[in-house]
């Protein structure tokens, strides 16, 4: 029986996790059942760990939603990592300086994050629209540019008194995102991410803009002949996609680290590709997939401690999922014009 592609993707991802994970554990001399149970206990064993899993879920969900939006328009945004970093940079640098009350600074700083990521995404969108530059290459390369730009900015022109060469000083406490569970790092960012997921789902399914965006992704030549401006739609979609990733970067700065750090993302923008694809590019299922990957991310630490399985096993699994799912889509893409 032929399964729909989304279901197949989810099955492939689950298969990779189980088969490849078991193999790696066997090689490390660990019974896979012990390894996986250590992973689950590490991720969901108590309130503290569950909250930390949800923190990881949130940080993955923002870039994954941005990526899903771009993919729906036929744009393979591989640059969420760089967009997230630029969003975080702008929020961090600005946040360190702002001293107003939180209800003023937090919205401004979240917006700054969206602007930073949005500009970075728009740059790739502009290259595509203006020079027909392949957005896979452009967004991928801009990731490296982003890290260099950020490193230069915080060690040079934007260096603050409290900052080190690799991070800014701590943000004033009133600009921290409020937690929703006491004594954990779980903040309102989770609620914001969930609200965004629901909004995007409604936007894609019900609105005129969503209809046009999907048309550009599913049948660009038909969309063009139906009067939809492909270049414009692609530019704004890349900008929006980057803005969502940048917003995610800002929530990490405001909610988790309370400062900008060059290493603020352990690859959320890349793992987000796998999250988006496993979630069938549907914001609702992307949210579910982000939770599964959140378990992997957080459970890896517990697994390493309890079962002595290197957490790099999880990194390798995630990489393999990206390779298989994204590689297949990019190779078989037919949305060229």
């Amino acid at each position, binding site marked *: 029986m032929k399964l729909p592609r989304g279901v197949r993707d989810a099955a492939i991802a689950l298969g990779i996790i189980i088969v490849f994970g078991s193999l790696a554990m066997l090689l490390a001399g660990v019974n896979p059942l012990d390894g996986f149970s250590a992973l689950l206990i590490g991720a969901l064993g108590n309130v503290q760990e569950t909250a930390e899993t949800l923190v990881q879920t949130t940080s993955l969900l923002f870039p994954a939603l941005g990526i899903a939006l771009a993919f729906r328009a036929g744009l393979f945004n591989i640059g969420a990592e760089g967009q997230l970093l630029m969003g975080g940079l702008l929020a961090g640098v600005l946040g360190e300086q702002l001293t107003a009350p939180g209800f003023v600074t937090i919205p401004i700083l979240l917006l700054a994050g969206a602007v930073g990521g949005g500009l970075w995404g728009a740059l790739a969108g502009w290259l595509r629209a203006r020079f027909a530059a392949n957005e896979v290459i452009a967004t991928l390369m801009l990731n490296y540019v982003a890290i260099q730009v950020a490193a230069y900015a915080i060690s040079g022109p934007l260096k603050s008194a409290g900052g080190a060469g690799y991070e800014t000083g701590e943000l004033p406490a009133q600009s921290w995102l409020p937690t929703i569970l006491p004594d954990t790092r779980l903040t309102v960012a989770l609620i914001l991410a969930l609200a965004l997921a629901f909004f995007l789902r409604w936007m894609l399914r019900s609105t*005129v803009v969503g209809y046009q965006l999907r048309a550009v992704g599913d049948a660009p030549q038909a969309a063009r002949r139906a009067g*939809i401006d492909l270049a414009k739609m692609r530019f704004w979609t890349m900008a929006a996609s980057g803005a969502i990733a940048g917003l995610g970067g800002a929530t990490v700065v405001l909610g988790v680290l309370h400062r900008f750090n060059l290493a603020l993302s352990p690859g959320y923008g890349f793992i987000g590709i796998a999250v988006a694809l496993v979630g069938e590019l549907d914001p609702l299922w992307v949210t579910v997939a982000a939770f599964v990957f959140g378990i992997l991310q957080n459970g890896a630490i517990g697994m390493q401690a309890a079962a002595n399985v290197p957490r790099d096993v999880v990194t390798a699994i995630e990489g393999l999922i990206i390779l298989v799912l994204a590689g297949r889509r990019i190779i078989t893409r037919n949305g060229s014009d």
Partner: protein
Amino acid sequence: MPALAMRGIVKRFGDLVAIGGVDLELDPGVIVGLIGENGAGKSTLSNIAFGAFAPDEGTVERNGIVGLVHQHFQLVERLSVWENVLLGREPRKGWRLDVAAARARVRELGERYGLHVDPDAIVETLPIGMKQRVELLRELEREPAILLLDEPTAVLAPSEIESFFTTVVALAERGIAIMVVTHKLAEVIAYTSRVCVMRAGTIVARYETNQTTAGELARAMVGGEIPPLSERSPLPRQVLPILHVRELRARTGSDAIDGIEFALQAGEILGIAGVEGNGQTALADALAGVTAYDGTIRFREEELPDSLGPRGRMERGMQIIPQDRHHEALVLDWSLAENAILGRQGSAEMRRGQQIDREAARTFAQTIVERFDVRPPRVDLRVRGLSGGNQQKVVVGRALAGTPKFVLAYQPTRGIDVGATALVQSRLIEARNAGTAILLISFELDEIFALADRVLVLYRGKIAGEFNRDAFDRGRIGALMAGHT
């Protein structure tokens, strides 16, 4: 002994029974025509005869090598004629190619079959008729006892068709068993000895060609009478043209137009006749606003710049029926209702604030479904699951809804069955009667003769001739299509 004998052939693709029990024999020296509508199973059957597909049931007995000439040429454009003809069977001298022997072999084949081609010519520089010779030579090089020709004349001009069949008849006289798969009844009547009619995966009728007529074959293909087209009302008195094209130059890929002029008035169908690749796509893309062009397009007393694009054209009352319904017209994974409003997605009737008005979309789709008899009549089904004819009804219905001022119809009945063709053509005539101006670009002369009030012949990007309906001359138009003056 037959050259090829197929007995009890059954072929399934998933749940679909493509071939449902076919017996067919091909005899040396006999040309058999295999006709049927799109989807009747002709191509599947010829692929089974060739050996590309294995049948699920039944046997194929081949007494000799089978050659197959495809509808779409299977040539390496950048290579020379001899390299194409001998690809994979190159003569060798030690570890080197024996180029002299290769050239000699191709010349000798050309002499023997009367198919003269320069062995060193690069294929991409050859005209289409010559390319087909190369394709045929490549198959003949293997000394086949059986030759299968799949829609061999689809891209040929009328004069090239004649010379092609002269060759085919000569090959039969040499004792080769030949099967021609086609939907062109005139060719079957003129050149075959026997004819088999396929419908829904089985052979429903067999005739000695000299005992039958094109009308009888058409009825056998469709399984009944062909519905008559709508009546045409008399052309309104000559008024100011609604569309006026001057000095138009444009290019889409290798397809180009070079200085085209014509005018079109309300309530008129202007046919553009010509062999594929003579500028039709460039003309269509320029009019649709999806490519840059030089020259002027005046529509309803207003000049349309190429920067206006499809959106502005639609707002002014233009609609298009694109050539490639799968890529240029439909989003195959969307529902019929979502596809029906494509092009109207931003209009006031189809939106409620920022949202798509789903009820309005369904109602609009329902009117198309009813007026065009789309089956199944369900607006929530994915269009991917519809037959080609029903998909095309959606595309045409969408374009004709609300009586537009002008419709560009590019191959509006390409690859769809006879019933759907008749329905689409009737609706085009009715739109014309209601005052819509229609530019009909078609590679099928029969379609142009059935619909057009006037015809222009397009040859190498220029207009080679113009005929009014009362002066249509098939021979003359065919000659102009082939570049004769």
